[in-house]
């Protein structure tokens, strides 16, 4: 080495490899560092790529349903809902009211389960080890309800094209009511643990700021967008599956930093409980399956349907050529598009902030890579 002074620094390239406890899956982030400050990031993804879109072209519509749960494996029911809605739109079949109501209840329960896992792992990344136990304990109750309803906890395959396969089990309504009553104090407990905690606030406030306009530029949706001040939720803007019947608020905050996203997701959990409480009182009687033939063959055409998944806007673009298999099935994953904004959010922060920001974006690699 030539005449370098003792404190001369050069850019260091550090690999936050695919095997890392804080990257929420197999995500590889190549960091360019100046000391501990991050100058730039480069995400390498694709470690979990399973070719779901290609599989979609080789299975019939009903056969593809179980594969859809495996993309965002944390919140499998939302994926199923989006797919079923897209195919039902192509078929122009109407889903009966009872099926829509039960779908809403399960989807909101699924939203709570997803946010609980987010909170547990995010807190664990930051260093708070206790919330993960409590969140997973609460999540158990939600998964028990899924298991009683459709037979599986995680890859639920709960919905079918045209409605539901399973009638609600005896005690479903009571279970949901018990869950609501039991769960709200738990959210208070998490807030007690974290919201005013000086370590939590110190780690999260002012970190990873993404303003509303930047969010729109990068196409970021979901709680990240709402924490930046844009009041937009697909459940209110383009309602589906009967959401217009329920009264709920959309939590928004102005700063767009990590702390705000935490507050938004906590509020969303409370709003989900509110929706479930309304829906469970008003489940109509009737059939659970619409008029769908044994063989699903939509007319030639295409449709794009999106729903508000816990992570953002999950969209399905289905192109049909009139046969029993989709011609092209594109999934627009919220985590993939949100992850793009990582570079902008991290700029100028420290490595510890990178961990916090990956956590706050709430990505699931199954969805990023498909």
């Amino acid at each position: 080495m030539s005449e370098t002074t003792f404190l001369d620094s050069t850019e260091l390239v550090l690999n936050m490899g695919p095997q890392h406890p804080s990257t929420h899956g197999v995500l590889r982030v190549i960091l360019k560092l100046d000391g501990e400050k991050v100058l730039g990031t480069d995400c390498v993804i694709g470690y979990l790529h399973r070719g779901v879109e290609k599989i979609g072209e080789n299975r019939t519509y009903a056969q593809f349903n179980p594969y859809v749960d495996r993309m965002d494996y944390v919140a499998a029911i939302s994926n199923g809902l989006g797919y079923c809605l897209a195919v039902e739109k192509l078929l122009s079949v109407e889903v009966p009211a009872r099926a829509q109501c039960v779908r809403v209840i399960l989807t909101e329960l699924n939203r709570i389960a997803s946010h609980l896992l987010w909170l547990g792992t995010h807190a664990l990344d930051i260093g708070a080890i206790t919330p993960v136990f409590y969140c997973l304990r609460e999540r158990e109750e939600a998964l028990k309800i899924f298991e009683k309803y459709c037979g599986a906890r995680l890859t639920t395959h709960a919905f079918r094209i045209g409605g539901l396969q399973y009638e609600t089990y005896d005690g479903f309504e009571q279970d949901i009511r018990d869950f609501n009553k039991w769960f709200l104090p738990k959210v208070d407990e998490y807030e007690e643990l974290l919201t005013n905690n000086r370590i939590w606030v110190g780690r999260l406030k002012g970190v990873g700021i993404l303003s509303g306009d930047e969010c729109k530029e990068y196409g970021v949706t979901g709680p990240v967008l709402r924490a930046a001040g844009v009041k937009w939720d697909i459940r209110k803007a383009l309602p589906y599956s009967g959401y217009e019947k329920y009264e709920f608020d959309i939590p928004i905050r102005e700063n767009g930093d990590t702390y705000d996203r935490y507050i938004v997701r906590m509020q969303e959990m409370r709003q989900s409980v509110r929706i479930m409480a309304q829906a469970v009182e008003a489940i109509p009687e009737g059939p659970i399956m619409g008029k769908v033939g044994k063989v699903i063959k939509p007319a030639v055409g295409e449709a794009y349907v999106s729903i508000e998944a816990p992570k953002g806007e999950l969209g399905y673009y289905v192109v049909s050529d009139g046969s029993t298999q989709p011609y092209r099935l594109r999934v627009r994953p919220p985590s993939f598009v949100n992850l793009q904004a990582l570079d902008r959010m991290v700029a100028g922060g420290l490595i510890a902030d990178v961990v916090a920001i990956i956590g706050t974006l709430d990505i699931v690699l199954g969805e990023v890579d498909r």
Partner: protein
Amino acid sequence: MSLLKKVFLVDLFQGLWVTFRNQHPKYIYTEQYPAERPKVAERYRGAPRLNINPDNGETLCIACNLCALACPETLIVVTSERNEATKRKELTTFTYDTSRCMFCGLCEDACPVDALELTQDFEMATYTREGQIWDRQTLEEGPKPTQYKC
């Protein structure tokens, strides 16, 4: 006031109190697995089983092949032969590859006579990959996991 709160770590103690409260034994959630087997739901999608008619001991399967057509992974192979006496198809072999199965339940939904059912068994481990391909006999009897005494 807020300075006092800051100095005396009030918010941290608040969190610690939550943790302390949860130490009560009534909150223990761990299931001691091999000793107490979890009670899974009635609709649980576990190991497949071919049901037998309890009265005459014959299989309920009518070899219609609908389960094989419904399976996304095409892992069910059903063979049958035609019985000249009753003019109906009779099941000869039924192969189910549990190593590729994703337990989605489409085969169970498709079966018109409720012969193929996904039971509440989840202990299906084997020592070989070939052991995961179940033939008709294993499907009718179900997996037999080794019971260890704890």
